[in-house]
């Protein structure tokens, strides 16, 4: 007996289902198939190759009208179903009703369109079907501009496709890095770099405000005021299950249409499958599980028992040349561990996520050949304890061999290349070592190996260790922290030579071993990037130690101490009054004069910080940076104006120096002193930089300290004018900013590089001019009062919620 089956939606899921059904139960069902699109079934995944021009539509058709006719299916293509009458078992198509004994809903999903101003303008498309694809192809003639909103899988495929056709494409992505659900920041950075190489502009952390245009789209406006011209805007921000018909018919719908293991909805005569369903709380956005559903539903309709069990899915990005694979669950979480592998030179990133003794997720970029092998391990839930050490190297190393890290290097033939930049092979290095080169520097000098980008330093050292055996003492300079094998010096050098401009870029290209660094390397990297790329880099607040993040000193009880800047230690009655008022208003428990001639307000509550800053700003005072790895104070004596011994205006010079240097970030704190005569009342000779005024001019000395180490300064230069003092000191500070490792005060750095070298640099007119210019440039960006910026956003400083009242209720 033939019964009547109606199917709504000729998509990938229903196509596969009908195929199975006609195989298993030929002639059992009389099928009517509705599809809103005016065509049969095609491989939707392959729209991306169609967009990029690698395939044509004809090549991706899977079931056309002829196929359906041959199976006896009544096709109602181009006709949307508008209603389901469950009582009468009738489906209403736009052009008339059809009765059913069983109904299958396979309506897929609808792209999510953000209701921004302008979202209805012609030229705004989603990325879902052939019509969207054709619109994008049409708009992608060379010279045209397109904006893609959304940097997930689909958005990037759309962007790459249009770029391949010659359009100038910008991707706007709300999150900090691309495909944030699949990738961590480092892998996102690799992907971004690859896409940028194809001329696609990527704007992360970009919130779209409006789509502009009168008759059709012309541009996209972001919250930060940036606009990008656009002949076409593709919104690829997500999809949601197309459940409207099911809702209207009163079927049970959660986020998707609720189905059981047999794909049956809450009405026993109605089934659903594909992206429109929700099974066991889970939605589906990739085809692999849909094909499983298709098998189960076909069996059910044919009267054979079957049950759907969702399996893990894997994703690949279909952008030629961007090799990306991700599978399973790769978020961080309780009891989960990561194994991260990076090969910066080849642009490879791999991350495995373990939970207990099982592999539960894998992300790979650059080399995805082992993807299926990992995916298999995820699916089977196999115990990987035995393979753990070598797991990340894939099947080639499975079995636990290669435990000795040197073994791999030992196995290399002499002609194997070690240093890619300089084309140095293992044999050359071995020869140099056997010829007497016993240190890394010596090997570098003789062979050039690791002398350029330096990423092969570790390999070179391994070759040395192999050749010299116990005679080789590894680099005495320890690595920056446990996240990397590089020293601070290497990292600084590589940031510059490789042009690395973000923390994820550094972590990826220098092979960081952790996912997000640690509390010790992140502040250092943030500083290095600020110092090296003042124009391009954007400060990362979350990589700053609490004092700098909150622009005040944290105290042992969690309150803060606030120090307004008092130029050269000079103040006025108005400032003192403003300080006294603030003390009363915020109930400051202690006011103290600091060793650097400033007034410290101790015991301020965090949530009061923005208000107290704003009060001080109004009284004309700015942050004293008493918390900063930056310029803190310039201590002065009274000098010629009042002192009977004074030879120069030490107070005035101190103020001038403070106004020149304030706001600059440095590797560690920097304090100055200026004394008006050799009696040295400002104690200038135990500061990082001291100036002692004498009749003939100014003695500048450096590298003093009065902290854990007590040091007297050593003379740097003696100059004749105040202008020269300012020049020499700003050049010297800039040299320190560019060269020193994070947390090293000036005296430590000078101990290392040698005072003579530093003096040569600042004494040489050309070098000095360059240093001054770079310092000036950086100051144009960073000499701003952080209080002003944060006082404007007080909300972020208070608790987000107060549950004390709620609990009392």
């Amino acid at each position, binding site marked *: 007996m033939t019964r009547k089956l109606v199917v709504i939606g000729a998509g990938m899921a229903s196509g596969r289902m009908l195929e199975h059904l006609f195989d298993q139960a030929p002639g059992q069902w009389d099928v009517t198939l509705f599809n809103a699109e005016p065509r049969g079934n095609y491989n939707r995944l392959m729209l991306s190759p169609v967009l990029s021009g690698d395939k044509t539509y004809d090549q991706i058709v899977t079931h056309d009208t002829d196929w359906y006719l041959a199976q006896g299916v009544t096709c109602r293509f181009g006709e949307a179903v508008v209603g389901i009458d469950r009582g009468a078992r009738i489906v209403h198509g736009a052009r008339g009703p059809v009765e059913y004994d069983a109904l299958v809903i396979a309506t897929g999903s609808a792209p999510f369109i953000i209701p921004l101003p302008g979202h209805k303008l012609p030229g705004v498309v989603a990325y879902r079907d052939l019509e969207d694809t054709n619109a994008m192809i049409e708009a992608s003639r060379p010279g045209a501009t397109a904006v893609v909103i959304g940097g997930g899988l689909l958005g990037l495929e759309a962007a790459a496709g249009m770029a391949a056709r010659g359009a100038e494409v910008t991707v706007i992505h709300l999150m900090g890095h691309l495909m944030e659900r699949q990738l961590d920041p480092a892998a996102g950075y690799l992907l971004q770099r690859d896409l940028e190489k194809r001329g696609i502009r990527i704007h992360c952390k970009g919130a779209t405000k409006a789509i502009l245009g009168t008759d059709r789209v012309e541009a996209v406006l972001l919250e930060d005021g940036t606009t990008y011209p656009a002949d076409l805007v593709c919104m690829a921000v997500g999809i949601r299950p197309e459940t409207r018909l099911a809702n209207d018919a009163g079927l049970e719908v959660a986020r998707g249409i609720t189905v059981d293991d047999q794909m049956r909805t809450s009405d026993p005569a109605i089934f659903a499958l594909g992206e429109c369903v929700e099974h066991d709380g889970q939605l589906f956005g990739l085809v692999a599980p849909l094909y499983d559903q298709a098998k189960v539903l076909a069996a059910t309709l044919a009267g054979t028992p079957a049950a759907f069990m969702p399996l893990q899915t894997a994703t690949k990005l279909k952008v030629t040349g961007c090799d990306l694979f991700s599978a399973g669950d790769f978020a*961080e979480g309780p009891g989960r561990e990561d194994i991260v592998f990076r090969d910066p030179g080849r642009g490879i990133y791999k991350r495995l996520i373990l939970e207990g003794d099982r592999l539960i997720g894998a992300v790979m970029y650059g080399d995805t050949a082992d993807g299926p092998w990992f995916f298999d391990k995820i699916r089977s839930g196999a115990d990987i304890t035995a393979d753990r050490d070598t797991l990340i190297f894939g099947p080639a190393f499975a079995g636990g061999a290669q435990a000795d890290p040197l073994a791999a290097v030992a196995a290399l033939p002499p002609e194997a290349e070690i240093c890619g930049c300089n084309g140095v092979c293992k044999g050359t290095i071995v020869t140099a070592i056997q010829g007497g080169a016993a240190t890394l520097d010596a090997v570098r000098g003789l062979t050039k190996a690791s002398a350029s980008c330096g990423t092969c330093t570790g390999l070179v050292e391994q070759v040395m260790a192999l050749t010299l055996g116990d005679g080789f003492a590894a680099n005495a300079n320890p690595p920056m922290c446990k996240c990397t094998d590089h020293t601070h010096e290497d990292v600084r050098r590589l940031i510059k030579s490789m042009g690395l401009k973000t923390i994820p870029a550094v972590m990826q290209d220098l092979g960081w071993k952790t996912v997000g660094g640690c509390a010790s390397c992140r502040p250092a990297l943030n500083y290095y990037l600020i110092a090296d790329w003042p124009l391009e880099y954007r400060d990362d607040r*979350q990589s700053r130690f609490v004092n700098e993040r909150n622009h005040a000193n944290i105290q042992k009880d969690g309150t803060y101490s606030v120090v307004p800047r008092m130029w050269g230690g000079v103040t006025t009655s108005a400032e003192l009054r403003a300080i006294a008022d603030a003390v009363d208003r915020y109930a400051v428990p202690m006011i103290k004069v600091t060793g650097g001639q400033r007034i410290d307000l101790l015991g301020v509550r965090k949530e009061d910080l923005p208000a107290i800053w704003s009060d001080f700003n109004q009284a004309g005072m700015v942050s004293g940076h008493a918390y900063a790895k930056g310029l803190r104070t310039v201590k002065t004596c009274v000098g010629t104006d009042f002192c009977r011994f004074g030879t120069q205006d030490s107070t005035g010079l101190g103020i001038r120096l403070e106004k020149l240097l304030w706001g600059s970030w440095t590797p560690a704190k920097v304090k100055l002193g200026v004394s008006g005569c050799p009696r040295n009342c400002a104690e200038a000779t135990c500061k990082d930089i001291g100036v002692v005024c004498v009749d003939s001019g100014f003695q500048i000395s450096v590298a003093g300290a009065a902290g854990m180490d007590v040091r007297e300064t050593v003379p740097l230069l003696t100059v004749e004018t105040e202008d020269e003092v300012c020049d020499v000191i700003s050049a010297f500070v800039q040299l320190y900013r560019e060269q020193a490792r994070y947390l090293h005060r000036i005296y430590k750095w000078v101990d290392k590089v040698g005072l003579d070298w530093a003096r040569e640099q600042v004494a040489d007119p050309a070098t000095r001019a360059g240093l001054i210019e770079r310092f000036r440039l950086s100051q144009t960006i960073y000499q701003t009062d952080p209080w002003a910026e944060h006082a404007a956003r007080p909300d972020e400083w208070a608790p987000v919620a107060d*549950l004390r009242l709620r609990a009392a209720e």
Partner: protein
Amino acid sequence: MSQLIDIAALEDIPPQGARVVRTPQGCVAVFRTADDRVFALDDRCPHKGGPLSEGIVHGTSVTCPLHNWVFDMATGQAQGADSGAVATHAVRVEGGRILLNHTVLAQRNTA
């Protein structure tokens, strides 16, 4: 009594940052990781009471700002050579809102 309390939007906490929730038993620090996971811990370091909410968040760990103890935010256990633990609270994100389990706090209140 409802157990999950809506305390804030996910966006109210900067990625790799934290915000504080006041409760009758002291502050709870709610952290957001770089990949948008959320954890809640007492805002008091077991070492000397440092405000963990002001620490640097890396991966799923936080480093106390006062003396650099590192805590696994999922378990509250101190890492490495240090020993000790900080209480954790159930928290989750739904539809962009952060929901904190308040029962634990309330129970402690009556205990």
